């Protein structure tokens, strides 16, 4: 029982990290209808920049803040200089550009930092928990707390603030939002700032969680998050979060219990195929 609970808690942590990465993708799809594959590149940059700042300053807080700032800039640059000029073309054009960015960033990281796996030896300032045989490590506690804080903040921004209202309006119809005086393009940029800053946090968390930072760390998240936003319902942020948490737990339990010779990363795609066949709008998507 204790083992099962521990597996479940680990799975929830994995799912939380998936959620942090997928959020940006869901936000961007919601407002721009672009599959932002390069979001995984932003996440990779987040991990590298976080590690760099951590090694330079020794402060995890500075590393996180610095990385969030750099990723926000990278995200806005991708939006302004790549996606925006390509919006007039069919959606596969920005998608191809997005894949190109992902590959370029991987190669850039390899060139600058080397192909080897770097370690991220940081201790997250969160406590361990021991409850009747179940151990929750400080890293997992950190993942929970940070994910909860990010989700809460995002919920607050989108439902309670003027900015959030403008974001929701612009994501439904940018032309109408413009006619109502909302600077939709600015709102799109703000969306990229938010999504990319969250990706930076996710990159650093993953770096510390697995104690690994490497050039292709974004490859699996790149396609897994795509599957997740489809499962959750394209454009639905709550759907993306629910799908991420479920997948994290399903993967962990599958590896822990079922002796199926199935690579864990295939599960996301089996779920995606299932959802497309039985509920094509996704778990929480609307038609």
């Amino acid at each position, binding site marked *: 029982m204790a083992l099962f609970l521990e597996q479940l808690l680990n799975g929830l942590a994995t799912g939380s990290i998936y959620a942090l990465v997928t959020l940006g993708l869901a936000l961007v799809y919601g407002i721009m209808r672009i599959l932002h594959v390069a979001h995984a590149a932003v996440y990779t940059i987040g991990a590298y920049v976080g590690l760099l700042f951590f090694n330079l300053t020794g402060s995890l807080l500075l590393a996180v803040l610095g990385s969030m700032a750099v990723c926000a800039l990278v995200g806005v640059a991708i939006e302004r200089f790549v996606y925006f000029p390509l919006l007039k073309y069919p959606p596969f054009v920005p998608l191809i550009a997005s894949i190109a960015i992902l590959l370029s960033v991987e190669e850039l990281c390899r060139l600058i930092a080397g192909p080897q796996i770097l370690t991220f030896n940081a201790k997250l300032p969160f406590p361990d928990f021991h409850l009747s045989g179940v151990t929750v490590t400080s890293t997992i506690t950190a993942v929970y707390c940070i994910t909860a804080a990010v989700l809460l903040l995002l919920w607050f*921004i989108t439902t*309670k*603030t*003027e*900015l959030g*209202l*403008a974001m*929701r*309006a612009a994501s*439904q*119809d940018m*032309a*109408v*939002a*413009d*006619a*109502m*005086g*909302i*600077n*939709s393009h*600015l*709102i799109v940029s*703000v969306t990229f700032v938010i999504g990319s800053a969250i990706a930076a946090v996710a990159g650093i968390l993953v770096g510390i969680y697995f104690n690994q930072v490497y050039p292709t760390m974004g490859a699996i998240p790149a396609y897994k998050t795509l599957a997740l936003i489809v499962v959750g319902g394209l454009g639905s942020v709550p759907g993306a979060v629910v799908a991420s948490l479920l997948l994290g737990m399903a993967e962990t339990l599958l590896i822990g219990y079922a002796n199926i010779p199935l690579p864990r990363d295939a599960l996301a795609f089996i779920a995606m195929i299932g959802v497309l066949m039985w509920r094509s709008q996704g778990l929480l998507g*609307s038609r």
Partner: protein
Amino acid sequence: MNRPLLEITGLSKHFGGLRAVDGVSFDIRRGEILGLLGPNGAGKTVCFNLISGVYKPTAGQISFDGQRTDGLAPHVIAGLGIGRTFQIVKPFAHLTVLENVLAARGIAHYRHLPKIWSSWKTSAERREALSLLERVGLSELADRLAGLLPLGNLRRLEIARALAVARTLLLLDESFSGLRHEEITQIEALIRSIRADGLTVLLIEHNMRVAMGLCDRLIVLDHGRKLAEGRPAEVRASEAVIEAYLGRKGSAHAA
């Protein structure tokens, strides 16, 4: 203050070889209800889109209160106090009726960096939005999702939303189309009361009878050019209009 509110001079918009609007000039005077008439494809909605900044003109000028507005972004033009509706209603379907108006009411803030922490539910904003809804007769439905409303209510919602933006000029694109007779009468009364509050109204209308009864002046467009301009009685008498728009003389009286 005798200068017209909006001055349009030699306005043209060409899409490839199509001259959708071709050298049109007219003024909108302060406090009037001006009607823009014309058959389908005459260039009425293109004119609207030029005034509200959706399109940039191929040639010509638009001045609002003495300031050139052609070439400005749509949200900047909205920020000047020009609000509009859409011929095919475009509510923010996943927002509530109240949120639709609040989104437009945020106009004062959107011009600057968004005030992230200012809650839009604060009382003043909410009160103003609710009073706009009351004005168009939708306050009972404030918490409904806009996407679920029938057409008549959506037309009212669009007017409320445009009013949230329009401090000076309200652009109405066929606000009567698809409505029942009683609804038309109610919205006519609403438009008159809006004008009585000091707003200037430019409306596109297909229904001749409504336009003749409601507007102080009419501009008739045909094939992107201005065919006639004047008081409803003058326009009704114009030979060119009768031929181009109303058909032959006999049917003009019927309309």
